[in-house]
């Protein structure tokens, strides 16, 4: 067992820390979030140049052959700056599906673009009736000639508005909640029959409701095998959970540390707030919850990278804890900042919103506790 970064991982960590410190203070982020397309194309290019967009992809595909550990290092720092570039949507999720399920031809066609940033992906899996259940898929793909016709609707699809391609889960056979019979397709985002309703989300990101109306795709659009998409879908969702949890852990670190700093500065009753024991204890609890999340994050990430048989259960544990503890830390950071914590002016509130949203993605705290206990 070893918790030390390799030299390469340390370099990665240093460079992403530097990137966030230089580019992601609250003002700079606000400018990006309020502008179009909701992230910085310049940052996206830098990320490509720094090699980050290549991290999780196999060397044979032009990538660096990294694992979930490298993604974790990156995402934890992204969480400290609330980075909004579509790394999770395009690289972890869309890219994760492509690298796992794409045919040789499809990868040859798209991977260079994914890695240089010119191709952007979105991952359309969530449906209204499904709530948090990945296998609950109503969107249907019917075989038609030598391809498929897709009909259905997907919700809260991140980065759909700027994606060049959308990965979509659709049912090709079986009942509504069968894991068998789900197929993943990679669809041109401009294909006829795709309709989008785009909107900003409360955490400063962008998402869309995406409708598929008789969208035609060829056989070559299938990722993996027809009807066997769930395995890929689930693996991609697990990677998504690990990435978002790392982001949340980074955000929790900022929240507890900012609170410790603020309460030492703010004076009331002739004392810094940090003199009051009840607040000291609260901050100690915030700190402990953060450390606990970090521990499960390491555990789940390394188990996944090692293909451990316990990885799935640990991922459930992680997402449960990140939801519960993350919201505890976030709510108390606001509480201990008093009125200031409620403002858009301090960064606390922005981290708070992001943490609450993360709980709603890929299953909330209750959902994963239930799966963990099952």
């Amino acid at each position, binding site marked *: 067992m070893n918790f030390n970064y390799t030299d390469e991982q340390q370099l990665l960590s240093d460079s992403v820390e530097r990137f966030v410190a230089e580019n992601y203070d609250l003002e700079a982020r606000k400018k990006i979030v309020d502008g179009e397309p909701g992230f910085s194309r310049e940052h996206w290019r830098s990320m490509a140049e720094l090699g980050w967009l290549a991290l999780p992809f196999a060397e044979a595909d032009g990538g660096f052959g990294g694992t979930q550990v490298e993604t974790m290092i990156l995402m934890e720092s992204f969480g400290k700056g609330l980075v909004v570039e579509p790394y999770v949507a395009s690289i972890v999720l869309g890219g994760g599906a492509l690298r796992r399920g794409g045919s040789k031809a499809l990868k040859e066609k798209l991977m260079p673009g994914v890695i240089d940033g010119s191709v952007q992906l979105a991952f359309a899996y969530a449906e209204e009736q499904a709530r948090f259940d990945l296998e609950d898929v109503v969107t249907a793909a019917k075989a038609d000639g030598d391809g498929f016709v897709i009909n259905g609707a997907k919700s*809260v699809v991140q980065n759909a508005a700027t994606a060049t391609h959308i990965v979509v889960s659709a049912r090709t056979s079986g009942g509504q909640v069968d894991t068998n019979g789900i197929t993943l397709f990679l669809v041109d985002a401009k294909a006829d029959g795709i309709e989008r309703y785009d909107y900003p989300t*409360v955490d400063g990101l962008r998402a869309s409701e995406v409708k598929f109306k008789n969208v035609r795709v060829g056989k070559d659009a299938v990722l993996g095998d027809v009807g066997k998409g769930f395995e890929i879908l689930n693996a991609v969702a697990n990677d998504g959970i690990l990435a978002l949890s790392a982001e949340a852990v980074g955000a929790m670190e900022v929240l507890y540390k900012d609170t410790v700093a603020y309460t030492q500065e703010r004076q009331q009753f002739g004392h810094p707030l940090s003199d009051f024991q009840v607040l000291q204890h609260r901050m100690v609890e915030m700190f402990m919850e953060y450390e606990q999340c970090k521990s499960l994050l390491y555990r789940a990430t390394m188990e996944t990278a090692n293909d451990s048989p316990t990885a799935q259960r640990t991922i459930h544990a992680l997402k449960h804890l990140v939801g519960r503890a993350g919201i505890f830390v976030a709510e108390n950071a606001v509480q201990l900042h008093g009125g200031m914590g*409620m403002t858009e002016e301090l960064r606390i509130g922005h981290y708070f919103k992001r943490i609450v949203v993360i709980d709603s993605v890929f299953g909330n705290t209750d959902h994963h506790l239930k799966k963990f206990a099952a």
Partner: protein
Amino acid sequence: MDIDLSPDDLKFRAEVREFLSSSAYKPGADYGKWRDEWFAKAKAKGGWDVPKWPKEFGGPGWTPTQHYIWEQETAQATLPWDMPFGIGMLAPILMGYGSKEQQERFLPDIRARKVNWCQGYSEPGAGSDLASLKTKAVLSEDGKYYTVNGTKIWTTAAHMADWIFCLTRTQDTGVRQEGITFLLFPMKQPGIEVKPIITLGGAHSVNTVYITDVKVPVENRIGEEGKGWTYAKGLLQHERTGLAGISRSLVALEKLKEHAASVKRGNATLMDEPAFRAKVAALEVDLMALEFTELRSLAAAAKGGALGPESSIMKLKGTEIQQRIAKLTVEAGGIYAAGWGMPIGAKFARGGMASYLASRAYTIYGGASEVQKDVIAKNVLGIRSSQK
């Protein structure tokens, strides 16, 4: 002890129900006109437009049980939009400590909802430690007016207010609760600048108010100079009981159940999921208890006069309950939590995030929870700290 409503109370409840249904807003009607008429009708019922005002000031003089019935019934109905600052906060101060002239000058407009008030207490350096406030008021040599300078912050609705009731410092005696003076002055005048503060989710309800050389005639001072703290403290108790929002929470909880039951999960609904159901049930238990804590406190107050320290329990527990309801509404919204107000997902979920974000302030304003617990420790448990 008897838990049943008396025949008189039942009669009263029927009358309230009759009134609320006959005066209800009809969709499409002119809102402003309806609002004016509603208050006029309520007034004609014998002070129902100012239920909490004492009888000698035109209130209905209800018993605690009647107040409870009113709260319960009105929580279900749509009442006209009303701000608490004049009716609920300043009016009791005027009645308790204002001069006859001041009462006659200000109360009728407050009652008619003609003049909007805001509360100028908090300052950048004086939040929980309100008594450290620094906004300065200096009496002119002829003793006719004060000149006020300072900054107020978090002033709710200052941008819509006609007047402000404001705590100012007229003297530094070393004891911070002394030397505070309670002044009233108009907001629309040179020397007052209102700057919006945007809160989480983009709402504008609070402001910073910069006060520069504003002249306030002494007639606008409540009570004696330097005694403002005593007056304000009484008012804070009123504010806190109002903030518990118990009957509103009872209604919100029912709504939450309804919404959760509309979220289908296979052949069942979200309400059937054990974890969610247990959280809703625990909320209901706490709320049932709090309802009776309020009733006990009202009954005690009716016998003994002043509101007891129970008002602190109510504020603490009541605001926590409101926050839990808001949080569970977001949870019920599931994947749409991020959507806040967008036309996506179930209708009920669209306002969920905004309410949840706003609810985080409930344990901050009107006395932050941590400080409220200090108050209970000291005033109710009688704990004397050896530190200070």
